[in-house]
């Protein structure tokens, strides 16, 4: 009896404590550990520095432009990069080595760089950049222009998409606030 009472006396505090531990533990797992487990971190095949290029006075549109048909050209091809980076530099600085790696692995072999795109949407989404021309790119995209190193790419282990891929509710929220239709075929294909 004694033991039991004492147990139950300390038990109320223990119970509260355990519940609290469980609660906090879950929060830690859910907010800190789970996201780390859910995403695998990947790095870009080439450490492309946007700042170096922007400092040279190259406009974003020079590489990421709308085609004459209004379709977004997306990422520049190896050929258009090769217009400037056609020959190996022999430069031994970190940037120079990276350029030479790009030329050796892609320009010389004529292969496209398998860039990891932070924003790729599923196949059944049709996104028109032309229709969203009025917005700042950084409204949706990472502000890479100010980054010397490409940010890490987090791939969702379950769904396979990038962590930065915009979710449908985000599209819908903005459409609703702008008074744009949220009908299925506005975005889906």
């Amino acid at each position, binding site marked *: 009896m004694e033991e039991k009472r004492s147990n139950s006396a300390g038990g109320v505090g223990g119970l509260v404590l355990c519940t609290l531990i469980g609660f906090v533990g879950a929060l830690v797992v859910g907010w800190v550990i789970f996201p780390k487990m859910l995403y695998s971190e990947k790095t870009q095949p080439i450490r492309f520095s946007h700042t170096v290029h922007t400092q040279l006075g190259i406009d974003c549109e020079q590489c990421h432009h709308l085609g*004459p*048909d*209004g379709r977004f050209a997306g990422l520049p091809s190896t050929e258009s990069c090769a217009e400037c980076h056609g020959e190996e530099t022999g430069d031994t600085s970190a940037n120079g080595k990276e350029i030479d790696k790009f030329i050796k692995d892609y320009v010389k072999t004529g292969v496209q760089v398998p860039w990891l795109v932070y924003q790729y949407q599923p196949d059944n989404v*049709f996104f*028109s950049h032309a229709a969203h021309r009025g917005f700042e790119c950084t409204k949706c995209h990472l502000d890479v222009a100010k980054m010397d190193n490409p940010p890490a790419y987090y791939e969702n282990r379950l769904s396979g998409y990038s962590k930065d891929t915009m979710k449908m509710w985000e599209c819908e929220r903005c459409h609703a606030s702008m008074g744009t*239709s949220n*009908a299925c*075929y506005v975005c889906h294909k």
Partner: protein
Amino acid sequence: MSGQKKEFPITWGMVIDIDKCTGCGACMASCQTENNVEPQREASNKLRATSWMTVYELTNDKAYPDHDIAYLPRPCQQCGNPPCVSVCPVIATEKNENGGIVSQVYPRCIGCRYCVAACPYHVRYFGWFDPVWPEGMEKTLSPLTSVRPRGVVEKCSFCHHRWTLAKDAARAAGKDPEDLDDGAYVTSCVQNCPSGALAFGDLKNPKHKVHELIKSPYAYRLLERLGTDTQVYYISRREWVRKLGDNYLKSE
């Protein structure tokens, strides 16, 4: 059916001149590949084969030599009052966008097939099997239409993706994407038909050819008396062809 028809500023419509259709199948072939429908080995089983656009053979049911035939290409009729939409339990198919195209969103579809049963035009197809392309042929998939797994319903979308392309092109050219020129947006079947039997445009836009065509005394729609109010019109100078467009009593 609710009977409350939604009106849209733009109403995309197709006008098919049956008197010009030779039944060659170019529209079907164009559709298959534009919309990533896989090549089907057992394509002669029409209960299983998927073809969003299908050419039907019509006959006047008379014996030789008074017999006559006509070919009727059948895309989704994009009803004004779509019977498929009201039966969908998960809102995977809707008619709520300007242009009046009945949408179909595959990831949302649960494959119940109510819509297949509801459609009086048999335009809806259920994927009984996962699509398989011969080795390497998946490289020729169109980026403009997503690939459907088995277990969902699919149908003609009036090559809706081409509208988005046309709007983008208009925006790039500094034109109004909501007021496209005639011919700026046409479906794949319409574009490729060698006989020019198919026309496409905004039925409400007087600058578009189809606006006039549907006023022809020879123009009619399929099963008009159901009140589906379709956006696909047919034209034939032959009365028997027009009469096959609906069910008539002997006395009519």
